[in-house]
């Protein structure tokens, strides 16, 4: 019985202990349940995102770049078919072996291989490595032949930037290249960038990036743990960049480039009413296509070491003293301020009796002198003595007001080109502020013939000429078609003589701001006087560009020559009186010419600059003459095309 009692006690202990254990089990299971609740209900979203991050991987697909067309919709920058070799890094087991095989197949050199390794380091293990973005057909077919031996290799038919007019437009359109870290900081590139995408490096390609770049596409794939693509989930198509429509006429541009061949210089042509740039040529030039896939060292050195400096866009980044092309503006300023009667006569007595001011001698370019000159003749024959005296009477500050109003001293195309220079129109305040010196009258005198501190770009001179030729109205120069401007309205508005408008009850002799398409002159007759004098300069005997004239009124133009000294002319030089060819190239004068055409009912203004070309009348004016003929020949076509377009819109 004792045993029985003990046994009952033992059974109770076991049962009690079991219940204690069971209670613990319940507690622990409750713990598991609450943990499950936490993970699957409270934190569900967090883990869902993590799960999607695991299984979904995105590949960005590059967009096609927007095309660039000229005034007539001719394609200036397109996307051409290219053969490329891509490596899918996630499909490669042994990178070294694959690269070795590829190296032997398409013939990469040591540096290219090194570059590929460097590139690979920057990529994620599932990214695509672009081995070559421009294979020859031969290389491409070789790759395809041995494709089964090249794991992860993918021959791709892709597109890349192509400039059909290669050399003719590089200074206008610019070029593309691989994005630099600095490029990637720009928001429009940062937002749309895909590895391997080319971005604008210069010109329109660069400044219109936002328009041209487009939007990348996204391909979403489900991938497994080892990164292998299982299925495509989603594909958001990429969007090609927008078209950029330039005002340039590629035929005229090509012709201008042709005229400049072998020379260093610039030609600009502009519609004097609409402000559209018809051509903006700079020479020498280079092939932008070479930059697309990274320029090779040899070509780069060739461009860099060319003494004529092809990389400088001379139309907007070349600074020149305007020389005598400045004279019409000086005359206009003098007339506007009523400084002198155009009938005032000044005698130019040649080098033996130069103009003298405080003991300093100022010579006319003509050794024998011009004799007795009135203003019209002084412009026509470009007599320096007359302008010395006129500038002295006018003063530099008044001159600078007019010069700035007509477009000198500021960027013409805004921030379209990152290398455009604003030039310099000096006045007394400027000199005191920048050089901390007071102004000398002698500086005013040489300023009168466009020498001294004054610095202008060829495009500024073109704009200046356009704004005088259109009767003294302010225009908005541009190189990208602006659909917000109704050109017909603009032309009509300018062609009405605005002199009598009560709207303009302000003093045009003050330093005032003028709105676009409104008058800038004080007295219309002054403008007309200058235009007439420029007519004389080209179309009358003794005029400086008489030899380049056309008698046919259709082509007849008016212009002004200029010769810009690149150094001081010494007495010795005057004595030697060497021909241009006899002077060392770097010391030769720049030849300049500005003109507008046709003389009756003008429509275009042009500027020509030939660096170290000698005299304007011999080197620059003949080119201008040829170009003007071409522009006027194409005018009807342009007018028809543009009107057709506006009526459509």
């Amino acid at each position: 019985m004792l045993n029985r009692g003990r046994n009952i006690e033992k059974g109770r202990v076991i049962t009690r202990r079991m219940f204690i254990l069971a209670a613990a089990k319940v507690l622990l299971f409750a713990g598991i349940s609450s943990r499950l609740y936490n993970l699957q209900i409270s934190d569900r979203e967090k883990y869902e995102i993590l799960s999607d991050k695991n299984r979904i991987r995105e590949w960005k697909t590059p967009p096609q770049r927007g095309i660039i067309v000229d005034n007539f919709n001719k394609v200036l920058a397109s996307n051409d078919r290219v053969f490329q070799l891509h490596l899918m890094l996630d499909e490669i087991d042994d990178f070294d072996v694959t690269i070795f095989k590829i190296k032997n197949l398409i013939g990469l050199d040591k540096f290219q291989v090194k570059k590929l390794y460097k590139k690979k380091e920057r990529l994620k293990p599932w990214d695509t490595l672009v081995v070559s973005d421009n294979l020859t057909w031969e290389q491409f077919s070789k790759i395809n032949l041995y494709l089964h031996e090249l794991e992860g290799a993918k021959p791709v038919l892709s597109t890349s930037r192509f400039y059909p007019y290669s050399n003719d437009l590089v200074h206008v359109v610019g070029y593309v290249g691989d994005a630099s870290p600095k490029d990637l900081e720009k928001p429009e590139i940062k937002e749309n960038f895909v590895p391997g995408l080319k971005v604008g490096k210069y010109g329109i390609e660069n400044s219109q990036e936002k328009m041209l770049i487009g939007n990348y596409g996204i391909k979403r794939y489900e991938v497994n743990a080892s990164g292998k693509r299982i299925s495509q989930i989603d594909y958001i198509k990429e969007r090609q960049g927008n078209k950029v429509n330039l005002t340039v006429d590629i035929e005229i541009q090509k012709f201008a480039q042709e005229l400049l061949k072998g020379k260093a210089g610039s030609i600009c042509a502009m519609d004097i009413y609409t402000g559209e740039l018809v051509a903006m040529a700079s020479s020498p030039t280079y092939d932008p296509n070479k930059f697309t896939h990274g320029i090779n060292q040899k070509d780069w050195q060739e461009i860099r070491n060319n003494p004529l400096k092809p990389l400088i866009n001379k139309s907007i980044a070349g600074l020149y003293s305007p020389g005598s092309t400045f004279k019409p503006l000086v005359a206009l300023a003098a007339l506007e301020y009523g400084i002198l009667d155009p009938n005032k006569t000044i005698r130019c007595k040649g080098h033996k009796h130069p103009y003298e001011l405080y003991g300093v001698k100022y010579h006319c370019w003509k050794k024998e002198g011009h004799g007795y000159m009135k203003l019209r003749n002084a412009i026509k024959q470009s007599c320096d003595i007359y302008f010395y005296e006129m500038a002295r009477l006018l003063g530099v500050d008044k001159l600078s007001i007019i010069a700035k109003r007509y477009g000198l001293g500021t960027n013409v195309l805004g921030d379209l080109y990152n290398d455009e220079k604003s030039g310099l129109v000096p006045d007394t305040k400027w000199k005191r502020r920048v050089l901390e010196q007071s102004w000398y009258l002698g500086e005013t005198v040489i300023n009168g013939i466009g020498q001294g501190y004054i610095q202008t770009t060829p495009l500024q001179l073109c704009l200046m000429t356009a704004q005088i030729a259109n009767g003294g109205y302010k225009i908005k120069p541009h190189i990208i078609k602006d659909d917000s401007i109704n050109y017909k309205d603009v032309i009509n508005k300018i062609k009405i003589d605005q002199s009598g408008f009560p709207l303009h009850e302000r003093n045009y002799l003050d330093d005032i701001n003028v709105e676009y398409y409104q008058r800038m002159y004080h007295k219309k007759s002054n403008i007309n006087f200058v235009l007439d004098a420029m007519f004389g300069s080209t179309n009358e005997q003794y005029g400086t560009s008489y030899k380049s004239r056309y008698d046919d009124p259709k082509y007849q133009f008016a212009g002004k020559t200029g010769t810009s000294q690149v150094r001081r002319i010494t007495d010795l030089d005057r004595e030697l009186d060497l021909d241009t060819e006899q002077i060392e190239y770097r010391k030769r004068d720049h030849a300049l010419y500005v003109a507008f055409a046709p003389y009756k009912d003008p429509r275009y203004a042009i500027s020509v600059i030939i660096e170290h070309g000698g005299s304007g009348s011999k080197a620059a004016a003949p080119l201008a003459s040829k170009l003007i003929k071409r522009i006027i020949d194409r005018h009807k076509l342009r007018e028809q095309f543009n009107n057709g377009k506006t009526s459509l819109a």
Partner: protein
Amino acid sequence: MLRERIQASNYSFLDKLRSIDYLLILLIIAIGSISIFAIYSTEGGKFSFYTKNHIIRLSVFFSLFLVLSFVRVSTWYKNAYLFYIIGLILLITVLFFGISASGATRWINLYFLNLQPSELMKIAVIICFARYYHRIQSSDIQSYKFLIQPIILLIIPCYLVIQQPDLGTSILIAGSGIAIIWLAGLNIKYFVYSGLLLLVSLPFAISVLKPYQKSRILTFFNPDRDPLGAGYQIIQSKIAIGSGGFFGKGYLKGTQSYLEFLPEKHTDFIFTLFSEEFGFLGSIILLFLYILLIYRIINVGLVSRSFFAKLYCFGFATAIFLYVFVNIAMVLGMLPIVGAPLPIMSYGGSSLLSIMLGLSIVMSCKIYNQEQISVY
């Protein structure tokens, strides 16, 4: 002496059938079926190697379970020590002739099955201890003489299993042994003292751990320490379970699983896969099935007359609980990854065999619940 009380021989076959716990059988079938679906899903919805093998094993071992259920409980009792000795011999065999996989030597090649003796040892320890304490008077339990024997009996297999190395199974063996010592009524103070001792010696214990074990424990406290290495499993497991949400991603739609982010998905991480596809709801239901299973086993113990049957059932119920808890807590990131399968659900012959064996002893306790076993 008390032989006349043993009435088992008088049981008719009908009586035996009547006293079978059908709910328990139903639960086994339910969990077994779920496991087939889960294994099928680990293979991405293809009827192939693992699924086939699992179905074969389930049916073979389930039949074995049914047959062995009719073995008299006294027979189990008599052979309890024999089981333990066989288990020990097998463990020693592993030491010398075992086959290795991923750095551990745990298996014996039996041609039709790679037997993992440590899994069998889990059951052997319970049945051995149940017999041991069946005989000991409650007054003697507290004495050192009777305490030292089971401790030695426990330390030997645990040591052998740790040598394989297999810390998880070793802990589970120790856990089930300790559970029976607890049930037998050993004074609570021993548990408190040894618990404190364990805590104090923990830093020392960690220092003798193998580097991979140490990293597992460090990873447990901070899985982001090495998200692609040691922490990978637990991070991916938590992502899978968490992303399942309330209703789950749907059967065969567990992306973490079929895209192979989940490691060991058909063995230790089978719950993760199940939870990803069936969500919170499915997980709770599965958990509930296990609770029911444990409850039914305890119930058998409660209606049994012999201490052996009681101790065995309660001990086995605790062991099942431990397996389930350790496995799920592990995949939920509540415990370090120690390699413990989920009973019945996980793919693995030895584990399934030992569970079925254990369950058949439970069923035999049920069928012969009135059988008294001499304490002498």
